[in-house]
């Protein structure tokens, strides 16, 4: 049953060291505020799941909080590499991470199987590619009617699923729209869930057939306006493409990355302070 709470409490109570955590968002509605709060609280030894790991996962990895990564595409969309991810994989810095590498189809089916209460998913995939050679979790199953051999993957059931959404009502029902990605499946597949939202209203007023997460399927609901920045929340703010490009420079070197994280994330108390810290840094640059 949903509970409206502060993000710091939700992260403290629901994410544990050693957990498998999916901070999901397919470019849209990436739960940045929740991820940064988990870093601030030093949640460690995490196995992170994400179809498209981007900046927040680069940050977790660069801070050494990550044990494993389940993923399909790890890059800075439209910009280039995730330097901290690459540094960890190529050089083991700050420590090696264990990769459980997939494709999008594979992960989407595995999340859906988790949401469906099934132990595995079946799809037509991994035909002639090398992923099954490096990932023993990818198996095969035979159709009992046609004999066709299909791909099988275990259901994804994270310990904690974390997503951002546009709106919740006071009972904790959640509404999202636009690119809904895998958000519903993550919430339904996870044992514990945190949903940050742009606004909490009296009445949800969902259009017919909208993507709604009912209160009984949601854990903590936290009001975090702008909490998906630098990704976007349709109807609220656009993607900050400039920050994605800036991240390329911030994260390229270990020292600049660590200094930036210390100043803006670890030395701030919450997402609002983090954003204020970035703004004041931008003003310094402008003055210089």
């Amino acid at each position: 049953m949903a509970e409206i709470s502060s993000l710091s409490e939700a992260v403290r109570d629901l994410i544990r060291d050693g957990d498998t955590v999916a901070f999901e968002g397919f470019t849209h509605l990436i739960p940045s505020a929740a991820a940064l709060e988990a870093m601030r609280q030093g949640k460690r030894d995490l196995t992170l799941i994400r179809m498209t790991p981007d900046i927040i996962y680069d940050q977790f990895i660069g801070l050494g909080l990550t044990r494993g990564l389940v993923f399909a595409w790890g890059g800075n969309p439209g910009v280039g590499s995730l330097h901290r991810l690459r540094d960890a994989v190529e050089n083991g810095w700050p420590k090696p991470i264990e990769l459980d590498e997939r494709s999008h189809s594979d992960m989407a089916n595995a999340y859906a199987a988790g949401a469906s209460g099934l132990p595995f998913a079946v799809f037509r995939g991994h035909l002639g590619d090398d992923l099954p050679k490096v990932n023993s979790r990818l198996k095969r199953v035979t159709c009992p009617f046609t004999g066709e051999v299909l791909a099988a993957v275990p259901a994804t059931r994270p310990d904690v699923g974390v997503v951002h959404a546009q709106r919740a009502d006071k009972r904790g029902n959640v509404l999202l729209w636009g690119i809904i990605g895998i958000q519903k499946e993550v919430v339904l597949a996870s044992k514990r869930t945190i949903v940050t939202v742009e606004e909490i209203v009296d009445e949800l007023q969902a259009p017919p057939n909208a993507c709604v997460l009912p209160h009984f399927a949601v854990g903590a609901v936290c009001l975090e306006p702008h909490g998906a920045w630098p990704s976007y929340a349709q109807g609220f703010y656009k993607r900050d493409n400039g920050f994605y490009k800036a991240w390329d420079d911030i994260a390229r070197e270990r020292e600049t990355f660590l200094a930036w994280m210390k100043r803006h994330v670890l030395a701030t108390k919450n997402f609002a302070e983090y954003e204020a810290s970035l703004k004041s840094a931008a003003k310094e640059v402008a003055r210089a």
Partner: protein
Amino acid sequence: MPEPGYSADEIMTIAAARQLHNDTVCFVGIGMPSAAANLARLSHAPQVTLIYESGTIEAKPDVLPLSIADSELSETAMTVVSIPEMFRYWLQGGWIDVGFLGAAQIDRFANINTTVIGDYGKPKTRLPGAGGAPEIATSAKEIFVMLRMGQRAFMSKLDFVTSLGHGSGGNNRAEYGAQGRGPSRVITDLGILEPHPETRELELTSIHPGIAVDQVKAACGWPLKIAARMVETPLPTNLELSVLREFKARSEAAGTGRPQKVRAAQ
């Protein structure tokens, strides 16, 4: 603007755009494929159906999206579906005519690598990974690939096969149970390559104006065959160039127009 009146990227994008038609349902990878697909939509194929794996069906972006899930896509799309629905009902369901992919590396049978350079366990360069490409490559009715030629992109052997092309050639692709006819065109900055009907080895079938065959061969990591029926790519028209440049200018003004690198479908 250099001598020919257009850049290598421009003719590559224009040559790629020409491959799409009004009745094509195209699953669009990010970067150059997206630029080409939208050029088609904004010029000769206004009714082409563009689908992005983020779930957007019939997107009509006014500026080039930096990612495959920008609001520019979702707000202009006819509808947006969930990711599982996109991959299960629309891609695996068999509705995609053309899967339009980028690549970091490609081999002579149009297999693609976007995973690692070097050994998987200890890579020299870690690339972004598969994204949606493996199942796009084996589910769409045909595949177009778009990337710049060069010795480090057109490889005699890939370190990793991220997405199946024609496998080891001949009938090998079908033996894997893959759907569709696989990569039918590789559109580059120097020309267009297509698989030989039987061996399935890529050969140069169209060369861009002003490019020498030796130049193309030199940019390929295997001894590239030249199709007997090789033609010259028609010059970009003024219309194509102006539509492309206006689109790029709008995109730069909107902050999404950084010179695009070719990338795997995210």
